[in-house]
């Protein structure tokens, strides 16, 4: 077939792809997405089926029978679990703005830059040969179709080179347009979906042609094949020489690949529009796999039967069959199917790898370069943003160059399928870190790094090293005798493990050490604060989606404009404003208030306000979409000027219970408030009740006290009236008694009225200078008769130079007389009674003491005696004399003078009543004090000490 025709069709086809992608982008821009549906999503996932599927499956089936099904069976078996695993990965990536498998692993393990770089290196080393494989498929199919020689300088290689170049342009145009890698590439996705349809249709057309054109249906093909002994054994699994271990390995590898291959991650996770599309993809994608494999065996058998004499590579049967039977048009169509399978894989894989390389190899280095001056920061950020984009474009070229180089140097000699499986095995090294990271909070960066590193090393040693053996490269002895002649270091039988196929062997040892180190080291050391936090975010992504954002991870006072400048540099003005608006609607309280007349908050003013920590977290996430999580974190840290400090760890650990606690606290608070309110109400009620009761009691006691003199008065008056014949002497005695009892009644009434006045706060003091010594003498005069009646010894010690009190003389007199009469009443009438009256000044108060050696007062009663009618509590016994109001009134008077009264006593030990009266601070205003705060009073007192000294000095001079 004419080379020009093939080349023309090839590039025509690529041009068609450009058109499709362009149309999709236009529709997307017009918000009429062609991509946002589960069918395109499922079809784009079929990027899994590469040229390896297209050509290689037939080749593999020709040699090993049904074994080729293995790598399709794995994804099919896993599909039901997508809803659990893949959806969780999608959710995490969307929330954290992760755009690659390297982002994912790096972010999960403390946003480690090193781990991201390691994953990227593994991907590049593992996948580049796989891309090379696709280039090789394109070249090989060109050779088959045109019959030209397959040399490096030949037209096949040239076609492959140009095709690769065209794909690079396509990828850069449609795959790396914006610095934001989180942006979906609708053009690419639609192109990939179209390619999936094309390769499926092309393969089905070929299959139908072979089965029903060259043969008479499936039965005929299989019958004819069964007639050939060499082919008959391919019908059974055992017969093809494929063991159980190999099957298991194939299943495991393909299961890992469908989730973690960079291109699968790209289409299934990054390009996912709606999680619910997974539901359809879960059965559409396996269906696709089944359909595309329907005709693999018939084509393989057809090739073996029809082309056996030509000595062709079974990988070329797909093209050779229509060619050999003279159907050039069909062959060309089939070739385009193969081209689509190869190109879609190259495009998507390259995008994924370029983002990783840029974000994890290049950006971390650039971000570390400190900006020279603060004022140059904005420019530096803008520069970095451009660099990010350029570096990604550069990475596209680099990846494709590497792949082409690999193809040109090494790849041409390798069979298709092997390279693919070795790639799968490389990607499978991510399984422990990814699954562990999704479901186990204990996994640490150390464990993941060590596991990955060692697993990758073993992968290289056991699976890649053998391919490097050959003339001019590694000696054959490495394989047979082991590295350095050490038998346990044979790549195919590491540590003496023999009897496994090389793939199973490599996977076994690499996973053995990978998983072992991951789990072992994770358990050995506790995770850091950031790791814990990220573990939480990943593992609990479904249960707590927004909390991770609410919890501020950044501390420090970063000026808001700095954060904005950072975003401007990477996202541009439009995107930044849009993002800040989004943020403002989410957290209305987190942004500085907008200046006058501005609708959108804080977009242009320059006031230096610190940014809310949540804004930093938000900015970090936005940047993670452009730079990868590790670089984004470093950048934000450079702006914030602070690391995420131990506060973060506290939050990380406590977050689990935080929400619960918060809810609980709210409830408790409410219930406490309610309880307090209830208690207050009850207390108020009780107080009112007690007050009411006391009022009743008071009234009762008053009337009771009044009844006693009234009784005498009434009885005696009646006696006088009923007995007019009484002796004059007796008559007079009765009349006198009536008079005295009436006086008693009057006294009692005025006391009650007095007390009422004090209680209601109406009593006022008539203050005047009072000489204390004189006052005491007068009071003693008033009770002189009582003292003499009881033969009480009196002791008075009043210094002559006592400062003059500023007080109400009559009231103080009342107090002293009351205390003295109480003392007299307390003394026994046996002539042993002693009463002392003492006074002495201290710094600013005058102390008066009335002391007796009488009955004393029990400690329990000491604070009760100042209550009015204390004996009312003792319903039936009563104090021998007095009204029961004296001490209550005394206390009121003292308190009205801002003084204090208290008693020191014990039963049968006498009593000492103290009165403390302030010498100064006799403020004219009436302060109604009841249980006045002690400390305040003391403070008041110490404040007035100095004045007191001055006054004292004055008074002594006088």
């Amino acid at each position, binding site marked *: 077939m004419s080379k020009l025709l093939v080349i023309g069709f090839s590039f025509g086809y690529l041009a068609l792809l450009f058109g499709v992608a362009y149309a999709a982008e236009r529709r997307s821009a017009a918000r009429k997405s062609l991509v946002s549906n589960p069918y395109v999503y499922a079809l784009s996932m079929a990027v899994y089926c590469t040229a390896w599927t297209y050509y290689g499956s037939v080749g593999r089936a020709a040699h090993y029978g049904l074994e080729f099904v293995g790598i399709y069976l794995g994804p099919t078996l896993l599909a039901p679990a997508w809803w659990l695993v893949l959806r969780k990965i999608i959710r995490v990536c969307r929330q954290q703005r992760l755009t690659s498998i390297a982002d994912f692993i790096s972010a999960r393990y403390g946003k480690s830059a090193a781990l991201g770089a390691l994953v990227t290196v593994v991907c590049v080393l593992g996948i580049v040969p796989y891309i090379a494989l696709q280039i090789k498929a394109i070249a090989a199919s060109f050779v088959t179709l045109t019959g030209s020689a397959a040399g490096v300088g030949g037209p096949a290689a040239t076609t492959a080179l140009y095709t690769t170049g065209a794909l690079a342009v396509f990828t850069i145009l449609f795959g790396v347009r914006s610095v934001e890698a989180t942006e979906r590439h609708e053009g690419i996705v639609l192109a990939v979906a179209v390619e999936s349809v094309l390769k499926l249709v092309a393969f089905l057309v070929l299959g139908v042609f072979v089965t029903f054109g060259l043969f008479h249906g499936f039965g005929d093909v299989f019958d004819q094949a069964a007639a050939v002994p060499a082919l008959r054994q391919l019908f059974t699994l055992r017969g093809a020489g494929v063991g159980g271990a190999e099957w298991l390995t194939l299943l495991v590898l393909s299961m890992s690949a469908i989730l973690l291959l960079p291109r699968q991650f790209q289409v299934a996770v990054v390009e996912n529009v709606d999680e619910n599309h997974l539901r359809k993809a879960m059965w559409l994608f396996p269906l696709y796999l089944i359909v595309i494999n329907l005709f693999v065996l018939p084509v393989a058998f057809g090739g073996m039967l029809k082309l056996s004499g030509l000595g062709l590579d079974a990988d070329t049967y797909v093209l050779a069959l229509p060619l050999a039977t003279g159907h050039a048009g069909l062959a060309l169509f089939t070739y385009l199917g193969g081209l689509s399978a190869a190109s879609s894989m190259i495009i998507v894989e390259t995008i994924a790898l370029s983002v990783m390389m840029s974000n994890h190899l290049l950006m971390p280095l650039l971000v570390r370069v400190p900006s020279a001056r603060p004022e140059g920061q904005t420019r530096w950020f803008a520069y970095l943003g451009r660099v990010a984009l350029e570096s990604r474009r550069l990475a596209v070229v680099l990846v494709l160059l590497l792949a082409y180089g690999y193809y040109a140097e090494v790849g041409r000699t390798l069979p298709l399928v092997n390279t693919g499986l070795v790639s799968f095995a490389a990607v499978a090294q991510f399984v422990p870190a990814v699954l562990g990271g999704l479901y186990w909070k204990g996994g640490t960066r150390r464990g993941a790094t060590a596991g990955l590193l060692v697993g990758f090393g073993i992968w290289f040693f056991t699976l890649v090293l053998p391919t490097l053996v050959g003339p001019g490269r590694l000696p054959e002895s490495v394989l047979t005798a082991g590295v350095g002649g050490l038998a346990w270091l044979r790549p195919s039988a590491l540590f003496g493990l023999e009897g496994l196929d090389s793939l199973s062997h490599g996977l076994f040892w690499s996973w053995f050490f990978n998983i072992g180190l991951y789990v072992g080291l994770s358990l050995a050391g506790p995770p850091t604060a950031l790791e814990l936090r990220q573990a939480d975010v990943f593992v609990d992504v479904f249960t707590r989606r927004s909390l991770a954002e609410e919890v501020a991870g950044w501390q420090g006072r970063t000026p808001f404009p700095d954060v904005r400048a950072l975003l401007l540099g990477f996202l541009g003005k439009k995107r930044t404003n849009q993002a800040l608006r989004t943020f403002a609607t989410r957290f209305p309280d987190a942004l500085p208030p907008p200046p006058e007349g501005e609708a959108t908050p804080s977009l242009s003013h320059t006031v230096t306000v610190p940014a809310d920590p949540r804004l930093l977290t938000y900015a970090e996430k936005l940047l993670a979409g452009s730079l990868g999580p590790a670089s984004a974190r470093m950048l934000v840290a450079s702006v914030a000027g602070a690391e995420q400090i131990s506060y973060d760890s506290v939050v990380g650990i406590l977050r689990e219970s935080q929400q619960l606690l918060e809810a609980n606290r709210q409830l408790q608070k409410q219930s406490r408030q309610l309880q307090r309110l209830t208690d207050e109400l009850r207390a108020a009620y009780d107080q009112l009740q007690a007050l009411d009761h006391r009022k009743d009691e008071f009234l*009762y006691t008053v*009337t*009771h*006290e009044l*009844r*006693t*003199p*009234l*009784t*005498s*008065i*009434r*009885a*005696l008056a*009646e*006696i006088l009236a*009923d*007995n007019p014949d009484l002796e004059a002497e*007796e008559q007079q005695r*009765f009349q006198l*008694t009536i008079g*005295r*009892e009436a006086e008693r009644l009057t006294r009692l009434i005025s006391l009650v009225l007095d007390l009422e006045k004090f209680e209601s706060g109406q009593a006022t003091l008539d203050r005047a200078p009072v000489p204390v010594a004189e006052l005491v003498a007068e009071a003693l005069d008033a009770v002189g008769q009582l003292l003499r009646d009881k033969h009480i010894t009196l002791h008075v010690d009043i210094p002559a130079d006592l400062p003059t009190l500023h007080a109400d003389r009559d009231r103080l007199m009342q107090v002293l007389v009351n205390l003295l009469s109480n003392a007299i009443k307390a003394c026994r009438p046996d002539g042993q009674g002693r009463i002392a009256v003492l006074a002495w000044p201290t710094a600013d108060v005058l102390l008066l003491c009335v002391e007796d050696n009488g009955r004393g007062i029990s400690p329990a009663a000491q604070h009760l005696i100042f209550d009015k009618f204390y004996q009312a509590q003792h*319903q*039936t*016994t*009563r*104090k*021998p004399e007095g009204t029961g109001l004296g001490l209550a009134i005394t206390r009121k008077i003292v308190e009205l003078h801002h003084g204090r009264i208290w008693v020191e006593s014990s039963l049968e030990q006498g009593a000492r009543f103290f009165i403390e009266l302030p010498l100064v601070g006799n403020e004219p205003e009436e302060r109604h004090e009841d249980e006045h705060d002690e400390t305040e009073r003391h403070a008041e007192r110490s404040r007035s000490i100095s004045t007191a000294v001055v006054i004292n000095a004055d008074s002594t001079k006088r």
Partner: protein
Amino acid sequence: MKTPHILIVDDEPNIVMSLEFLMRKNGFQVGIARNGTEALAAIDQTPYDLILLDIMMPDVDGLQVCRQLRQRPDRAGTKVIFLSAKSREADMQKGYEAGADLYIPKPFSTRQLMEKVRELLGLAA
């Protein structure tokens, strides 16, 4: 018929004075106690026909005096009249529960008191 013997118990001297005059005027024999302790001692010595008993007293109150009296079978014939300034329903209730024959709140009418005393002593009005 033997002269009725009456005990007056009160800590108010003026009340005792008036009651003593009244009782003697009516021809009764009179004993006097100024507090609960004295009253119990007097009761112990003499089987009084009637006691005029105050309640609020410094040491032993009138209720206790009455209760102790009621525990002595040899004083079963003694009548008790409480004379108290405590005038509430509940106070009177307590008085009767302690075993009083009558409870008269202070201040009382001397004529009415004498009527009641005679009544309780079974004398013609």
